[in-house]
């Protein structure tokens, strides 16, 4: 028998999500159309979600005290075939998922006509919030239909008034894309894309310098546990920011918002994306004490099992692009951060020893610092990077 989804309604014009407060019925119970099923709380009021049809409540998939976006499926009702057909209800799994596999199939061209369906699956996102210029309602509707954002139009030259992308331009663009191989981007890829898009609205600049790793490698021979170069850089960044946190401040309007705690994130490559676990108050623990929590977070991130409190809220990020054999890179800070510290691959380099008056081989790696140029200038970024290098030359003190 058909399963009818129960969805989170939009309970007010500005409401994007609601918290599940309690369940008024239990799975297995018979329910009537319009019956109250779930009590939810928005930031404005407590209300109920009603049943879309008569039938038997199969499951309730949402967790209590958890917030779900408008359009989220909160459970299912098993309805008779007659009831589902009579009400013209769409059956779970929603047939719409097919659209994502063929994002370039225009639904309006001779395809089957869409039925009147709940119109609140996912909120419409105003195009200009993502950096595009004016889009007509018709074009917006077409893009929503295909799940596209304004930034996806960056490759389209508009032929309309004032360079506006018209729906004809758009259709030509889509038709062109259809000739190429198309595959789905993972949700991880989509969320990285969104973060980078938002970050790129700022002027990002980069500075870099080499740092000698010999003291660290010497220290690793005698130390238990053995901290790696990336963790060493993370700890040095934390110490430097504890001395002066201003470079990690965020510019909001005409104010600099200073960090309240030295929580430092670090990038871990996971399947088709990057996760950023966070070491809280990295300035308050010694380098050696950070090794165990660091290793644990790396393992959890690779398995994509990071607990909620282990991500978010960090004030700067360390990324070890050296693991890919790279010596230089220009990383982009997370949208809510001003700084990202990069670490290149270590290699042997000749170093002029003025006492011996000859070149000696040392292990060296490049440190890079990418920063929001609105907050920092090259001088302040350079001084911060120098201080980090200085700290890394004495790992036993870290």
């Amino acid at each position, binding site marked *: 028998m058909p399963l009818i989804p129960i*969805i989170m309604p939009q309970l007010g014009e500005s*409401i994007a999500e609601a918290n599940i407060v309690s369940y008024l019925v239990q799975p297995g119970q018979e329910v009537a159309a319009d019956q109250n099923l779930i009590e939810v709380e928005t930031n404005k009021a407590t209300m109920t979600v009603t049943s879309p049809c008569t039938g038997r409540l199969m499951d309730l998939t949402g967790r209590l005290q958890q917030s779900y976006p408008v359009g989220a499926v909160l459970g299912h009702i098993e309805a008779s075939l007659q009831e589902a057909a009579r009400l013209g209800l769409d059956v779970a799994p929603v047939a719409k998922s097919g659209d994502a596999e063929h994002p370039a199939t225009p639904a309006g061209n001779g395809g089957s006509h869409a*039925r009147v369906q709940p119109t609140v699956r996912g909120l419409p996102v105003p195009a200009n919030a993502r950096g595009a210029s004016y889009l007509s309602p018709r074009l917006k509707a077409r893009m929503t239909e295909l799940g596209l954002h304004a930034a996806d139009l960056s490759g389209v030259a508009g032929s309309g008034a004032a360079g506006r992308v018209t729906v004809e331009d758009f259709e030509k663009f889509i038709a062109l894309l259809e000739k190429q191989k198309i595959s789905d981007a993972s949700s991880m890829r989509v969320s990285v894309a969104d973060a980078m898009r938002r970050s790129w609205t700022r002027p990002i600049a980069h500075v870099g310098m080499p740092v000698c790793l010999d003291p660290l490698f010497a220290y690793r021979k005698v130390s238990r546990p053995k901290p790696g170069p990336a963790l060493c850089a993370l700890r040095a960044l934390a110490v430097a920011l504890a001395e002066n946190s201003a470079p990690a401040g965020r510019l909001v309007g005409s104010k600099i918002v200073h960090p309240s705690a030295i929580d430092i994130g670090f990038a871990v490559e996971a399947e088709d994306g990057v996760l950023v676990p966070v070491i809280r108050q990295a300035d308050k623990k010694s380098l050696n004490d950070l090794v165990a929590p660091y290793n644990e977070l790396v393992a959890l991130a690779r398995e994509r099992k990071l607990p909620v409190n282990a991500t978010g809220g960090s004030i700067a990020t360390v990324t070890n692009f050296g693991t890919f054999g790279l010596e230089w890179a220009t990383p982009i800070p997370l949208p809510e951060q001003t700084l990202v510290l990069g670490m290149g691959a270590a290699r042997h380099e000749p170093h002029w020893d003025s006492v011996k008056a000859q070149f000696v081989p040392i292990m060296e790696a490049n440190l890079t610092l990418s920063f929001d140029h609105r907050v920092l200038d090259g001088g302040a970024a350079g001084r911060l990077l120098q201080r980090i290098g200085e700290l890394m030359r004495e790992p036993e003190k870290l």
Partner: protein
Amino acid sequence: MSPPVLEARAENAAFRKTILAAFRFMLLARLLDDKFAALYRAGKIHGGVFLGRGQEALSVSIGISLKKNDIFAPLIRDAAGRLAFGETVLDAVRTHMGSALGPMRGRDGNVHRGKPLEGSLPMISHLGAMISVVNGMLFARRLQNRHGTVGAASIGDGATSTGAFHEALNQAAVEKLPLVLVVADNQYAYSTPTSKQFACESLADRAIGYGVEVQNVDGTDLFACLKTLGEAVLRARHGGGPQMVVARLLRLCGHGEHDTADYVDPKLKNSPLGRDCLKAAEETLLRREWLDASTLASMRREVVREIDETVAQVQREPAPDPFAENWTAISCGHLAEGDEGNQGDNMPARKS
């Protein structure tokens, strides 16, 4: 409860028929509103849902007092008045659920529906503004030598605080337009109580200031509302100039279904203003034996079935297709034809 004059008229079978018809529209409007509220909370309606709970007696009295070819500019709580003026349940449901077959073709939602060519106007949210729209139509009819029709505009207490209300009322008075302005003084403009809106004793005073004839009525009393509105419409139709009716009542719901209305004073709810007009009308009809319990029950069943079947039908209907849609204005698309210079979004419908 009802004045003696009315008691006498109540013997009149025609009046009895009108009352029963009005009561059925009230019941239909109430249950339709309840259905919209449930569909909204099941995520089936996009945009706001606004109910007329507690205002049906006044609303139905406007719709039922008007005739075909009259003009009606309803407000968001006028489900009963719209039905009585001739709107079908199907049109109301189609607009709320975004069906392409509805009068707005799925382009405009919920309360913003109407058929201007048939005299029912889609509303501008800022209700004071609707009065001059009705004035304009009435004035046009006068210029066209069409006489004997009336235009009713329905507003709330909040609209009387807007400049548009004052300008339009003055204009109607000066031009002696056949306007019937109905003010549902439901104690709150969204959440703003009347004490924060006006300092005059009664909103009726505002009409007097412009030389407009005005009546006060108990908005919870169907019999009184029908009598007052019926007489006001009759006076306007026969050259009596603009008429204003101020009905005091209480909105028995939130401003919209997203509003839990916690701000409503409990004292008001327990006062005579908080009386449910539908229940009061039902009790009166049963007491007078104009309606018996079994007729009432079958009337209710009939109404529930009509709403249920209409909702089921509309859910099977097509959604609008922006590519097949002709994006010219719905009621005056003919004015755009042949407009070759028209660029941008007003392109002709694509042939599918």
